[in-house]
């Protein structure tokens, strides 16, 4: 039994014509062959060369022949399962299913001033607890909820984050790579009997550095699923056009796909689109811009042709607080991933850019996800839902449908009723003290933190986890990534706030 996710029951939105898709595909193949990509990894070059790529060892440039690319696309599974700590929370990626992940934030925000600040360990674990509870949140992506918490040295951020999610949640997890942290993450997964999806992240334009390729090797050799990331900034690390940045993003993810499908054919892969338009007048990334929605819709359409599951990484509003602006920015992104057949995307909890996250925001976003999910289900057209006999029986005014058995049966399933929204009439609202969605979300968040008990690790799993974390700490201390001062602060942070897991 896997988590069902949201299933789309009608054909996806196609914003490209078939001819456009073909042009984009041919463009991608041409760049992969003519321009090629730079791969800073000796073993990676060896593997690709023996697979038939043209490799220039002086510039580390790899040119990929179209037939190999097409073959590797065929090797990638169009749908695959991914085991979570709780088997009931395992996922089946691909097809018409949409899953949501949290949107990462470097920091938490103060809910009165909306200013960012580092999260404490307790806040980190509480945020995971909230995400574990929310029914529309299906897995954890990298750097979620926060990039780490106060006192943790940067090299241990990813692993402490993984540990918190494994302790306070039973949902599937994605892990990033920094200083080869993916090796410890894989050890943890193997010891605990779960699967982590790892990442291999390009450095646009058209470049992979050593750490990304190391991660690709470790993951595919361990048989773990891999998420491949292109992250073009339109006008900076990719062409400023949607079509051009689509091609360059596809080239980036496809080159690593060729590598992992060569290392281990059939490796479960997910392709990530993270295009960021830029405001060229100010040089600022245009978080929240609608161009992103167009980009992901086109990316999902091309990847549907390939039959490879996708992740649309740009759930990031430009607003600094949960307000009208952040709501329209988020709603657009979430709905277009759903309509265009994306397999997954971040949504819950991200406040501004990738810079802040809040569980209160995650609770609000649970309702956006619920609405998207309900829409994707579509509508049922049967004799019963058409209700012709009922219409005949009720007739014109003063006939009405209140109190009909048909109404009692159907009304609730046709809607999605948001959990943290103001649904009162004006008089009731005045009486409530003018409660807003933020007030309702805060109540729900506090209730979840107080009462939700995540599925605990077994004692043995907890011992294994702590042992591997200790190995990692020791490794990074020895290799000079953690200074002794940092280690002292780190140890203090680990015991601050008391036990945080159930």
């Amino acid at each position, binding site marked *: 039994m896997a988590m069902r996710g949201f299933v789309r029951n009608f054909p996806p939105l196609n914003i490209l014509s078939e001819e456009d898709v073909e042009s*984009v595909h041919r463009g991608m193949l041409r760049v992969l062959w003519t321009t090629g990509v730079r791969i800073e990894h000796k073993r990676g070059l060896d593997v690709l060369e023996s697979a038939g790529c043209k490799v220039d060892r002086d510039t580390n440039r790899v040119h990929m022949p179209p037939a190999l690319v097409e073959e590797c696309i065929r090797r990638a599974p169009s749908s695959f399962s991914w085991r979570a700590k709780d088997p009931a929370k395992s996922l089946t990626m691909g097809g018409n299913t949409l899953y949501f992940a949290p949107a990462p934030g470097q920091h938490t925000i103060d809910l009165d001033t909306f200013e960012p600040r580092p999260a404490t360990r307790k806040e980190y674990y509480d945020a995971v607890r909230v995400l574990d509870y929310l029914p529309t949140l299906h897995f954890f992506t990298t750097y979620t909820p926060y990039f780490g918490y106060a006192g943790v040295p940067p090299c241990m951020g990813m692993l402490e984050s993984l540990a918190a999610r494994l302790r306070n949640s039973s949902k599937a997890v994605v892990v990033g790579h920094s200083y080869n942290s993916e090796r410890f993450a894989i050890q943890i997964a193997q010891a605990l009997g779960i699967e982590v999806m790892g990442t291999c992240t390009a450095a646009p334009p058209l470049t992979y550095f050593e750490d990304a390729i190391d991660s690709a090797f470790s993951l595919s050799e361990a048989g773990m699923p891999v998420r491949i990331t292109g992250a073009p900034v339109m006008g900076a690390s990719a062409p400023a*056009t949607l*079509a051009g940045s689509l091609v*360059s993003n596809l080239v980036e993810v496809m080159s690593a796909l060729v590598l992992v499908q060569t290392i281990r054919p059939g490796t479960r892969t997910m392709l990530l689109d993270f295009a960021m338009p830029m405001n060229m007048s100010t040089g600022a990334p245009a978080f929240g*811009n609608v161009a992103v929605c167009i980009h992901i819709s086109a990316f999902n359409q091309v990847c549907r042709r390939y039959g490879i599951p996708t992740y649309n990484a740009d759930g990031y509003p430009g607003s600094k607080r949960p307000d009208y602006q952040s709501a329209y920015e988020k709603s657009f992104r979430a709905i277009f991933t759903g309509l265009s057949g994306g397999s997954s995307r971040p949504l819950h909890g991200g406040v501004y850019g990738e810079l802040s996250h809040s569980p209160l925001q995650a609770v609000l976003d649970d309702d956006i996800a619920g609405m998207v999910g309900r829409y994707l289900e*579509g509508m049922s057209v049967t004799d019963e*839902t058409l209700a012709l006999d*009922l219409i005949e029986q009720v007739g014109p005014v003063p006939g009405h*449908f209140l109190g009909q058995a048909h109404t009692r049966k159907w009304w609730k399933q046709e809607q999605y009723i948001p959990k943290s929204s103001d649904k009162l009439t004006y008089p009731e609202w005045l009486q409530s003290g003018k409660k807003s969605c933020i007030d309702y979300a805060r109540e729900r968040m506090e209730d979840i933190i107080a009462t939700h008990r995540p599925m605990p690790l077994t004692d043995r799993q907890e011992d294994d986890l702590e042992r591997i974390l200790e190995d990692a700490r020791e490794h990074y201390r020895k290799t000079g990534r953690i200074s002794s001062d940092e280690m002292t602060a780190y140890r203090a942070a680990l015991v601050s706030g008391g036990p945080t897991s159930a």
Partner: protein
Amino acid sequence: MALTGYPRRFPALKVLTDEQIERIHSGVLRVLWTTGVHMEHRGALDILARAGCRVDYDDWRVRYPPALVEEALRQCPSSFSIKTRDPSMSLQVGGNCLYMLPFPGHHTVDLDTWEPRHPTRKEFYDGVKVLDALESVHGLWSYTPYFGFEGVPPSMCLLESMAGKIRNSGKFLTEGYSKGSEQYTIRMAQAVGAEVCVPCLLSPPLTYYEDAIAAGLRGAEAGLPVRISEGAVYGGTAPASIAGALVSACANLIAPIVLLQLHRPGTRIFLNDFTFPQNMTTGAPGFGNIAIALHSAAFNQIWRRYGVPVCNGAAVPGSKRIDFQSGYERAMNAVLFAVSGANFILLHGGVAAELTHHPLQAILDDDISGMIGRFLEGIEVSDDSLALDVIEAVGPVPGHFLSSQHTRKWWRAEQYVPKAADRLTYPEWLKSGKKDCLAYARERMEDILAHHKPPALTASQEEEIERILEEARAHYAKEGLITADEMETYRRGMNAPGYPYE
């Protein structure tokens, strides 16, 4: 030259299969023939009886033979133009073109307390001025911005509203009717060389009262476009299932279509889907509910088949303030209306349900409209936009696209840059005093009010408008619909300095 609005450059989203459409269509025909519609208008019944409908004069019931229905649908023009006072604002309705219109509110709202209150004459005219200034507002709607203003007797609200819109805007007009007021609105529009679209409003289930039919016939006789509005609540005045509500909506709307096409073949008609699901626990309409977007998507798909342009009116929030909830309720419904093929969307300015409107909200919605418009444009896929040669020339890291000619040419066209949104970085935002979208919208609103000059009426047009208003005032006073006290208050407003508006 008509306003181009927002052309959709890709096929509309389809939530129904062809077979499902067929089932709904047969259901609609069956309801029209078997159940029939209650139509309280003697003249209409005569017209329909002559054309072959089965009419029961005792209970005003009309039953429509399927062939007559199909013929009337064929007679509806699938695309048509509407004349406006400012010829550059005329509309070309139908096809892939989307126009955005404002959403009405009974009252204005106090932006500090979020409580509703009556607008003054100046606020009404200022509200129109802001709508006239916003490029994404392609016309004005009935009861917009407000249902009337302080000091105006109820019987004159619609006519004062019409006059306010004519005086402060050259855009498309439609206005409601009450006690025969449509005869005056039609003349006011004629006085300025415009066509007013006359509504015909149904009282679900399956019922039309005399005033609705009289207004529709009067509009058709004057050769004006007519809009027919469906305002059912599913679970109350329509079945609770979306498919059932849809059958009921289509049957409701076809009843006057047949009448109008018999009375004046080729009458320009568009339909407004203004339906809500009901929350059966609280009895409140589910404003903002996602079921609305599903209903409208199916509605649009069916009426595309019939070839009659459609308006989706129900993107109206349940929240009482401009906040995260109202943002997702409005944005998600509106964008789904757009991709499923709406020809009109009611959007700008509605704050809570139909109860409040504010120009500040209209300015925020200008950005949602801009985003929708940009999305509908889709992606240009051409040699230039694919940029394969630029990608080749730039190559991998350290190549970049920042200063390329291609970037300078393209970056802006690919985005929509919102006008009233927080686009700052964290440090800039702190320095700005944490300005949010509301603060930006307020600045823009004040700037518009200070600087925008709506196209002025000529002296003789102004005289004619005032003369028609005077005639209506005298008529309603004589009919006893304006008391002496009401008239005294009303006159005081008219005699105030700066009347009608400065």
